[in-house]
């Protein structure tokens, strides 16, 4: 395997992705990611110099809305699925120490 994924990398990606993996899952993830990256490295066979990265298929630009208020008070709906709420707000563990 050309791409060897270190413990540090898996730990780091876990922080980025907000995923907590068990030790077994970490080992599995290291192996999976290494294999996938080896496979993805196949792209290096392609000469893409001078090729513009294509994020959108169609050259569509300037899709706008006008600055007009269209929404009313939807608080009840917005909070309907909240795991926890209080005083019309979403309740979360405290964010400051």
């Amino acid at each position, binding site marked *: 395997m050309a791409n060897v994924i270190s413990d540090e990398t898996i730990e780091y990606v876990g*922080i980025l992705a907000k995923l907590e993996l068990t030790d077994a899952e970490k080992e599995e993830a290291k192996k999976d990611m290494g294999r996938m990256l080896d496979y993805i490295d196949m792209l290096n066979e392609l000469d893409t110099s001078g090729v513009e990265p294509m994020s959108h298929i169609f050259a569509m630009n300037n899709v706008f*809305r006008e600055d007009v208020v269209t*929404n009313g*008070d939807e*608080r009840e709906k917005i909070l309907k699925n909240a795991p926890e709420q209080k005083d019309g707000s979403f*309740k979360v*563990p*405290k964010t400051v120490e």
Partner: protein
Amino acid sequence: MTKQYETVIGLEVHVELATKTKIFCGCSTAFGGAPNTHTCPVCTGMPGSLPVLNKQVVEYALAVGLATNCGINQYCKFDRKNYFYPDNPQNYQISQLYLPICHDGWVEIETAAGTKKIGIHEIHMEEDAGKLIHDEWEDCSLVDYNRSGVPLIEIVSEPDMRSADEVIAYLEKLRLIIQYLGASDCKLQEGSMRADVNLSVREVGAAQFGTRTEMKNLNSFKAIARAIEGERKRQIELLEDGKKVIQETRRWDDNKESSHAMRSKEDAQDYRYFPDPDLTPVAISDEWLQAVRDRQPELRTEKLARYQTEFQLPRYDAEILTGSKHLADIFEATVAICGKPKEVSNWLMVEAMRLLKEKEQDPEDLSFSPENLAKLIGLVEKNTINRTVAKTVFEEIFANDVDPEKYVAEKGLAMVSDEGALRQAVGEVIAANPQSVADYKNGKQKAMGFLVGQTMRAMKGKADPAKVNQIVRELLEE
């Protein structure tokens, strides 16, 4: 010998734009709603919702870019900045990294050493986050998404400033430009203008910049000045102790006048930006750009010059009047009604500014109509009221925007210039003050002033002072 240090400062200024709706949905941007009452699936990150760009945001960003001498990226894109925090409902912020709308501009500021150019690295469009309220009682936080998705522009300066004074001059300059454009009200206290300070120190003469820190949570010019001084000291102390400055984000606590690092091992500071696939690029044609250019209003510098030539105002007056777009608007609207620019200027500069200072308000808070100020000036002009009465009437206009004509009529404040009534009043005063009459006759001119004052007092200030003067003199000479 102690080393000499130079402070190097760059600013990231966030400005909330004055649009009616949010940047990607049709929710209102109005302040003061109950929590989450200005929200929809888009600005709360509901699954399946999609953003659509508010055109006015681009218009405002272009206007600010042109007014700050920026180049315009006529093809620009939105990128996602990925990080987890509850005020950010999608856990990514839609912003611009790779192709921001404006780049490489500058503004000029006045410093003790003369005019100085401050470079603007870029201006980009992005969405604001929601508000977190900390509930001490339950030891939790509450999330309100009313501000989530309110449009912002972030103006990133070059590291061109060297002191707190320069920073404040730069912020004042930006504030005036943006207010003149009508793109934002730029109130630091209310958070519609926010500045993060990037600061480093280096020995005078050093070629390289030192390691910088970023300071957040600065809510007033005073806090900014204190934070700069505090951070400068902290960094110099570190260097003097042979330690290193760590590149980090710090939070300023203005009450404690100190800062602390905002680091945590859960914040990797790796935002994984990539082009947002849900939004199309913005292509700004030459025609569009020209149209924005053509619509640009007169900015402060031009207005300052015009006030001196067109209205013959002294530079000092013109500076104060144009120091607030709102004040200048009131000035011009009043002059348009009643002429007399110097008179209008005096009322605004002296009386209005005095009252604002008393009430600890800004010129932006002035709420009376130019019509009423013009009417007041007319009343003085026509001698309907004298200046003393006019000042009290102005206080009423300032506070309650009263119609001065009605107010003067209702309160019976009109000046008495009826010859008979005045003669009677003067006669009574002379009769009651034989000593003063004697003094006058003995050559004490001052005694006449006393008799005039007594008459004005008897007339409750409403008498025409010129006429009273004339009658007192006549009767004394008899």
